[in-house]
């Protein structure tokens, strides 16, 4: 049973202000109930898919400065800092 508190907790985890958390209760619950069918799957193997890369195919440790001045494209202040509200 999904309650309003649960929705508010999830909204806090993903940092989204919900003016009406109740509106999400029914649908989230319905979908989670649908996900619960995964409990009844009979697995014959613990395998999961995943691609692999050999260590030697990884990027070489070379400094290559980015060809553009990226900060010019972002919301910067006059000293090229990004301003963020302080976390309390």
């Amino acid at each position, binding site marked *: 049973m999904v309650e309003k508190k649960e929705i508010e907790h999830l909204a806090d985890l993903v940092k989204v202000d919900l003016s009406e958390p109740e509106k999400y209760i029914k649908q989230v619950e319905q979908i989670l109930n649908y996900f619960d069918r995964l409990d009844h799957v009979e697995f014959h193997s613990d395998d999961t898919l995943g*691609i692999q890369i050999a260590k030697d195919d990884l990027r070489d440790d070379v400094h290559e400065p980015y060809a553009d001045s990226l900060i010019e494209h972002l919301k910067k202040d006059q000293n090229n800092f990004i301003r963020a*509200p302080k976390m309390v």
Partner: protein
Amino acid sequence: MTKIGLEIHCQLTKLASKLFCSCKAEYRNTTPNSNICPVCTGIPGSLPLLNKKAVEKAAMISLALGCTIPEKIGFFRKNYFYPDLPKNFQITQYNAYGPTSIGSDGKIEIEGKTIRIRRIQLEEDPGRLVYEGTSEKTMITLVDYNRAGTPLVEIVTEPDFETPKQVRVFLNVLADLVENIGVSDPYLEGAMRVDGNISEGDGNRVEIKNVGSFRDVEKALHFEITRQQSLVERGITVLAETRHWDEARRITVSSRSKEDEQDYRYLPEADIPIVLIGNDSIEQIKTQMPESIVARRERYVKKYGMPAQVADVLSSDRFYSDLFDKSHNETNAKEVSNIITTDLMGVADTREKKLELKITSKHISDLADAIMTNKLTRNSGKSALHEMVKSGKSLADVMSSLDLGHVSDAGSIEKVIDEVFAEEEKAVAEAKQNPDTVNYLVGKVMRKTKGKADPATTLEILRKKLSS
């Protein structure tokens, strides 16, 4: 019974580029947000590209700490929101679903105590926060992403330490180790950061964060032990919490915002495939590992007959042991080691001073040879060394400009001794009475000859004259 565990973050400062992009790994002394690209700032659509050498260097640290390196390593996302995290998650490693980090289950001996290493993981450093005004009053934090993405190795120990001193010794050993392997310069500002957790007896664990230097770590732990013990004595339960070290007041303070109790919702980082390291690779990395400090010390003692203390000091400093290796030949090894450990290390003991040294291996080799062939006394040698360090001039130049030369002929020495006898009647009388005080007169002769007089000859002649 005190139990202390450590979490150390060590930057891989010797890499050229960041962990997931080609921006420079060295971010110090850069103007704000000038060392960034779409990847390290998490611009939409950007993808991380793992640095091959970071994996190799982290593997070396794992090997040096006796850890197991898995054949395949993987990366995870640790999700939380903070102004210094451009993606609001950190790409790191995580072993809760299997040993996929670069190292686990290692150990190291510190003063006879075994410290177990729980795990070693590769992860990215966040950006840096600067506060507008004082950090208490201001509402704005200024973010600089130059450091975001810098490669870090996190080393987590089991709570095997029993005293703060053991911790300090361990940290010094670890610093020497990473410097010796060539992965990090641990004395750069911010290159090695330590968090500790500490509990007394059956009590709760307290985490201590934000400790600046190794010395402060020892102090903070001492304070915390005292704090916890006094609570226990008064029958008060020690709270399980996070505290930070207040440098100004030299105390630990309960943190207002807690990073613990956060739900990080770890999931695999799908943009980085599982990396196959493979046993061949690990063997190759083993062969590339530089000689360990322990092995080097043994080599110094066995091959060169260095006294244990000299070997200890020399082997634990990468800069000077490299210099030794380059400077000595078959005959002058002991003298070279002497020069370095007795004279040079005292002159240039900090990182900055080492970098400023104008002296080369040739200087030292020449100096050692000159002393061994009696062209210079050891005293003169000291002066010559100081001059060479400052000016970088060759030994020959320095010897002539400072008029340093070995005076060993009995005739010239006798003349100087006669001068001294004339000037120091009182001392002479005392020396005749008490032969042990002859060193004062030797000193005078040395000063008059600017250290050039051969000490053995001087002493011989002095004794003869005194006894006559």
